């Protein structure tokens, strides 16, 4: 029975989503009630499974002795699962209003609901095969969402997206095959599953394979040089970019990388090797790269997309330190960044929705007219920059501390990258906020301020809730840190 509790949150939205596809709803309201109920119920299912059901390893399907599909909720799953479950409900509410201007909502919400189950599947996977499976599903389920607009730009973005994803999955698959050969079973275990006798003498090969798999998953985590799909995918409707490309999809990539490093290969095998140095360097370069390009991007959503690229690599950098402290810091930044970036995308979406303005020089002077939107942007923006006492400050502090403690010379280089990126972050975020609040011109062309006002409560309430949570977890990070530490040391 408990096993069922684990399966349910994964399966239910997928079935519900498929069932929604052919349904033609009478009106908007009816659809909203259905979709919202499904999402809310599933969130309850998933939170129940995470916190109360304690099901252990649930086997879905048995191929052979070493190959099976299993679900298992461990500490890491709990964190990722909770984050996704909570943010999904909020985003759904936001999407109800936002999608009215994109059209074809029936299809959209069907796939959107399906994706929910798939992401939870990634989170709850008990072994590498299951994770790989859901990981592939995720690409397919999100493709229609990315291409929703179905114009040339969207199709181009969709194609880029799927090509990159398939390429990444192919690389990850190579990793999967080797892990299969060098391990007993592939259940995720903290510390790795490699069998030392088999590994001996093949270290170098395995390190190369690790790198291949790392960059395979790194495609979703948008690590250089595989980041191109992400800014392009920002043509998708805002709820999609917000949830999928700031939280679910990209964080799945990061999540898979953490699984790969800490639960498959194991840090003992990797720490101090050249492979670790390679991924540290890749992460550091991406951190600076993302921020630099973000600074030069005038399109607000794409600017945030590049910022996502930079921030994902903060998390990867934390994970790549291969110490519990590093993982703790990475996870902390993962949570913070999820909250912050989803809010930022929502604000960009709110501007787009109300005024159809997409470039930052077009939003001058809006700050006062859209108070809730821009206050949210300002508060989460300073959090992203890492102004104490807001959220981003703690995670960056933790990352830097962990980097110093790891004693790796390359990690010191990473700290420099963190600092440079912090300056750039400050520049690219404040630039938007300051222009919005302090316009340069006194007069604007007629019609400039038409329709510039806060959107209705469907969109403002998510913004307020998210901003409030961001500030609260920023002010009181102690308990959160404690839990993350337990996860990062493999205790829960």
């Amino acid at each position, binding site marked *: 029975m408990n096993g069922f509790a684990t399966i349910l949150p994964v399966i239910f939205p997928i079935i519900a989503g498929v069932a929604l596809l052919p349904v033609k709803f009478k009106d908007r309201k009816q659809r909203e009630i259905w979709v919202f109920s499904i999402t809310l119920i599933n969130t309850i299912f998933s939170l129940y499974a995470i916190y109360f059901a304690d099901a252990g390893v649930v086997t879905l399907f048995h191929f052979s002795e070493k190959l099976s599909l299993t679900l298992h909720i461990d500490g890491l799953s709990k964190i990722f699962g909770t984050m996704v479950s909570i943010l999904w409900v909020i985003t759904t509410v936001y999407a109800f209003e936002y999608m009215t201007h994109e059209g074809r909502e029936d299809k959209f919400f069907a796939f959107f609901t399906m994706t929910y189950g798939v992401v939870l599947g990634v989170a709850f996977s008990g072994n590498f095969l299951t994770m790989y499976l859901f990981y592939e599903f995720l690409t397919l389920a999100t493709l229609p969402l990315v291409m929703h607009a*179905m114009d*040339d*730009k969207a*199709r*181009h973005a*969709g*194609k*880029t997206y799927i*090509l990159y994803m398939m*390429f990444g999955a192919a690389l990850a698959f190579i990793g999967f095959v080797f892990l299969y050969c060098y391990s007993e079973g592939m259940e995720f275990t903290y510390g790795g599953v490699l069998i030392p006798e088999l590994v001996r003498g093949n270290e170098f090969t395995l390190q190369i394979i690790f790198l291949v798999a790392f960059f395979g998953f790194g495609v979703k985590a948008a690590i*250089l*040089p*595989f*980041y*191109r799909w992400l800014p392009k995918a920002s043509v998708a409707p805002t709820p999609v970019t917000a949830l999928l490309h700031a939280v679910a999809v990209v964080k799945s990539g990061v999540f898979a990388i953490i699984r790969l490093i800490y639960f498959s290969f194991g840090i003992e095998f990797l720490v101090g090797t050249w492979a670790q140095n390679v991924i540290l360097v890749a992460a550091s*370069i991406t951190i*600076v*790269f993302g921020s*630099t*390009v973000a*600074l*030069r991007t005038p399109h607000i959503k794409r600017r945030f997309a590049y910022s996502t690229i930079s921030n994902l690599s903060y998390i990867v950098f934390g994970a790549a330190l291969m110490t519990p402290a590093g993982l703790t810091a990475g996870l902390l930044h993962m949570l913070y960044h999820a909250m912050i970036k989803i809010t930022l995308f929502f604000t960009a979406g709110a501007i787009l929705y109300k005024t159809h303005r997409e470039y930052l020089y077009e939003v001058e002077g809006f700050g006062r007219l859209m108070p809730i939107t821009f206050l949210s942007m300002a508060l989460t923006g*300073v959090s992203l*920059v890492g*102004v*104490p*006492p807001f959220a981003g*400050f*703690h995670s960056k*502090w933790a990352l*830097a*501390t962990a980097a*110093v403690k790891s004693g790796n010379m390359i990690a010191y280089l990473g*700290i420099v990258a963190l*600092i440079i990126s*912090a*300056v*750039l972050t*400050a520049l690219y975020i*404040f630039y938007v906020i*300051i222009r919005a609040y*302090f*316009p*340069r011109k006194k007069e604007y062309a007629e019609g400039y301020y038409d329709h510039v006002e806060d959107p209705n409560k469907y969109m403002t309430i998510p913004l307020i809730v998210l901003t409030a949570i961001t500030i609260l977890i*920023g*002010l*009181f*990070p*102690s308990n959160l*840190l404690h839990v993350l530490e337990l996860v990062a040391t493999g205790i829960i």
Partner: protein
Amino acid sequence: MDFGIILPLLVFFPMVGAILVYLIGRKNKEARNNLACVVTFLVLLGAVLLFGKHASFTIPGFCGLGLHFDGDELRVVMAILTSFIWFMTTVFSKEYFALYRNRNRYYFFLLMTLGATLGVFLSADLYTTFIFFEIMSFTSFVLVIHDESEAAIRAAHTYLGIAVIGGLITLTGLFMMYHMAGTLNIDALAEFVASQEEKKAIYAVGVLILVGFGAKAGLFPLHVWLPEAHPVAPAPASALLSCILTKSGVYGMLVLSCKLFLHDANWGNLILILGVITMVLGAVLAVFSIDLKRTLACSSLSQIGFIAVAIGMQGLLGSHNALAAGGTILHLVNHSLLKLVLFMSAGVVYMNLHRLHLNEIRGWGKDKPLLKFVFLMGVLGITGIPFWNGYISKTLIHESIVEYIEILHHAGQATTYMQTVEWLFLFSGGLTLAYMTKIFVAVFVETNPYPGNAAHHNEGPYMNRLSAIILVVCAVILPLLGALPQFTGEKIAEASYHFMGAHGPEHAVHYFAWVNLKGAVLSVVIGALVYFLFIRKVLMEKDDNGNMVYVDRWPKGLNLENKIYRPVLLSFLPFAGSLLARFVSTLTDGFVAVLRMLVFNDDSGRVVPPEDRYFSAYTDFDDKKVVYGEGFAKSLLMIGVGLAVAMLYILL
């Protein structure tokens, strides 16, 4: 009674008050103004209550490492000073802002900044200091940009840029310190540093931490924001920036110099050199300036230099540093009080004329005895005329330099270096007199040859009774402090010795003995010479109508911000960065191009990004036709079918 709880209250009460004030301000403007005054007054009361109580307070876990407050004497003196000046400016704001827009925003950020500033001054560990320091930087940014004029926006950007970069460098330093010492508690750090033999790394870290604080204090070479930002802010805000916010940087320097590097000659020397440069530079800039508030801002720069010199002397003098320690704290307090008076007077001028250019406001104060008196008090104080407060602190600093020269003399070491410092000190004092005379004469003595500019002030009094009372109260304090140093200044100095690690002086200082008066006289002579021979001859010229007017003779090229900082930060670095980023992304583009050729077998191999004829072609087709007819979608579908068949085969 436990007074510890007052500490966090002092910090958070204004912040809560800010929100209240903002909410009330949307309904009733008068009530808001009064509430803001009440809030600041309560804070002042709270700060006074704390004096001599040695309270301390900790909020564990808040913001990660927890917040630690401490209320020893120096910190409480700073808190009282802060809340006093805040109270005065808030009351003054009522009239000053009467015709302004966005007053709600102003009051909100005014009170937020008050809380943050008190947080800085009362902090017992550098982590807490830093948190509030950063909050303060950001909230005060809004005060600087308040006018939203082009100059204000530009200056505010500079301010924010320097605050952010300085803050991050300080953070790096703090972080390294935390790594080395395992704590950021100021007292524990002091012990840690004292116990270390090898200090090279600690000096490096100290310099990093100094950058952020020094930038806020206006220390060379990060002073560039100060002469820009102070004049463009509304007068009450410039008063706060000049009187208090710069002092938060000084507080950081004090923590470094009096705790971490206590009696450390090398460190003292560094601060001394920076201080001397700032002192002279600020004074020279002020002499050249032809804008009332800009002169005052440059003067602040110079006075901060005086304070830095005093801090540096503490390090050089070692354990005999009571004079320098007293000079530091007294000049700090005096400068705050003086600038309060001067900036508020400038505010009165601006409030009526909306102009600050010396040629335009010339002669406006001629027939306004009250304002003239108030301003004169400030002038006499800041120039260091005996019986006004500036004289006391300058004398102490001067004495400490003289004392060190004597020590060096006895030890048989070269004294040229310190004698240069002494002369530069007196020279800057002289320049202070020169530029203060310049603005005083311009505004209050001379007649304006073109009265049209300055004449049109509104009917009725040029300021209301409340503002007048505030100004007079602030002005009268100055000679009081100066004439009775034994009862006022020395008490403050004694209270602060504990923080600075100093002991009382061996002998009482005779402020009005000839030895000490000599310095002041020398400064006055230098000042008079500069004023009559340089300012009146070189910095003024005859215009077309034969009238003498003030001209700006400062060479345009000599501007650190425009010539170096802005080009490097805004043009060169972004260019280099994006060039690099471009290069990196071309790598992937090439990769994609290759893939595209291989996967699609495109005839020409050209990359045509936005359009797409392969992926799907829904729009080109009739709805009734089969949509998966050809192209990529069909291939995908076939792959899927193939995979399904293969799966079935394996399973069965």
